[in-house]
């Protein structure tokens, strides 16, 4: 069973439907226990980093993610759901630099490109031994964001993309996987990526 963590507003329906395409049972929930027990947890995220962190803390999502990592249960962060896994973000919130969960080291920074947000389909250079990108070659994924992590995460497979400069498009570690793009909005390639993640659950 895949749980999609509901911790605020935004389009969760598409993530739910895309996960259902894998044949798994999918539930959208903000319940700690249900989300902890699920085989896979999807952490979506739209909007400002600080607002997402506030929403996440309200449903104890930060503790939930740490507990799942302890129990070696898989987590997939999408978009801002990826960013909050890092230590902090340069996206000021109420005048401060908001802290993330700190599962990954490093800071999320503003994309250095003349036009932001990056909105659209971009290519991703994935490592050859990636499970996440298995069978996906030369495909584009849909990105919508102004901020991203740029320092590679140690002991993990890092996939990069380029918009103005290079940034992290995806990170795969033993339990935590994160993508800056929206696989649930990336057509067939995105569905394949979600299938690859869910097959390892």
């Amino acid at each position: 069973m895949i749980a999609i963590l509901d911790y605020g507003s935004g389009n969760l329906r598409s993530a739910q439907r895309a996960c259902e395409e894998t044949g798994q049972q999918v539930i959208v929930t903000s319940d700690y226990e249900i989300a902890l027990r699920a085989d896979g947890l999807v952490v979506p995220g739209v909007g400002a980093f600080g607002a997402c962190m506030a929403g996440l803390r309200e449903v104890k999502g930060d503790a939930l993610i740490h507990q799942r990592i302890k129990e070696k249960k898989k987590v997939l962060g999408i978009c801002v759901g990826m960013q909050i896994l890092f230590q902090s973000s340069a996206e000021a919130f109420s005048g401060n630099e908001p802290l993330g969960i700190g599962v990954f080291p490093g800071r999320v920074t503003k994309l250095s490109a003349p036009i932001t947000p990056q909105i659209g389909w971009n290519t991703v250079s994935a490592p050859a031994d990636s499970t996440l990108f298995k069978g996906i070659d030369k495909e584009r994924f849909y990105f919508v964001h102004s901020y991203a992590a740029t320092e590679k995460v140690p002991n993990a497979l890092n996939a990069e993309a380029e918009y103005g400069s290079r940034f992290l498009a995806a990170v795969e570690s033993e339990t935590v996987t994160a993508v800056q793009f929206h696989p649930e909005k990336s057509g067939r390639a995105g569905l394949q990526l979600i299938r690859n993640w869910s097959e390892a659950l």
Partner: protein
Amino acid sequence: MTLATRIIPCLDVANGRVVKGINFLNLVDAGDPVEMATIYSAEGADEITFLDITASSEGRGTTLDVVRKTADSVFIPLTVGGGISSISDVNQLLRAGADKVSVNTAAIKNPILINEISERFGSQVLVISIDARRGRTASGFEVTTHGGRTSTGIDALTWIEECVSRGVGEILLNSMDMDGTRAGYDLELIRKVRQVSPIPIIASGGAGDIDDFGRAIESGADALLAASVFHFGIYRINQIKSDLHRKGFTVRAVESMSEN
């Protein structure tokens, strides 16, 4: 730049049905927006836009249903515009499965709505739709409402700068001079907006010839929206993309077309 220029078909929807002319041979139900969106997605659309032109509130409920059904089967971004005037409208649409909303008249009447939406849901969900027409304001382009019939006296570039500072994520730039003419996108308008806009521009209005698309990209458009050329089957989306690719523009590949 490795980001692909997006091709976006726009469907006018009223009471849950597509209302502009549709000319496809193999449609089961030519007025079904879900079926149309599915076909466009399969043809390589990078995004789908629904413009809700329903007048009644009953009809608006139907639109939510259309959004829900589309998001359930089409896995590409979905933007919905038309009549959105409150945070609650936005929330309902996002919850139904829309990824972005486009706001037009309501933002002109109440600019603070832009701040409210972007603070609550993030800039990335908010597209400002601007109906620009040649006029006597400073830049030579003014903002209109009611499909270009009503002048606001607001300069288009001034309005864009204000929208950007209030937190808009993207501009849907409709040329009221070119709309419906099929004589090409308004390149002068696109160039002028590009000079002041640090956010993506979706060019709209006037697409008629296959060469129009590349010209709009060269003028500074990040995405190209069209309605009638697709609905009437004058061009298919994959045909536009293949042509752009051949001319050296970056587009997302569709079946049988290699990017490299």
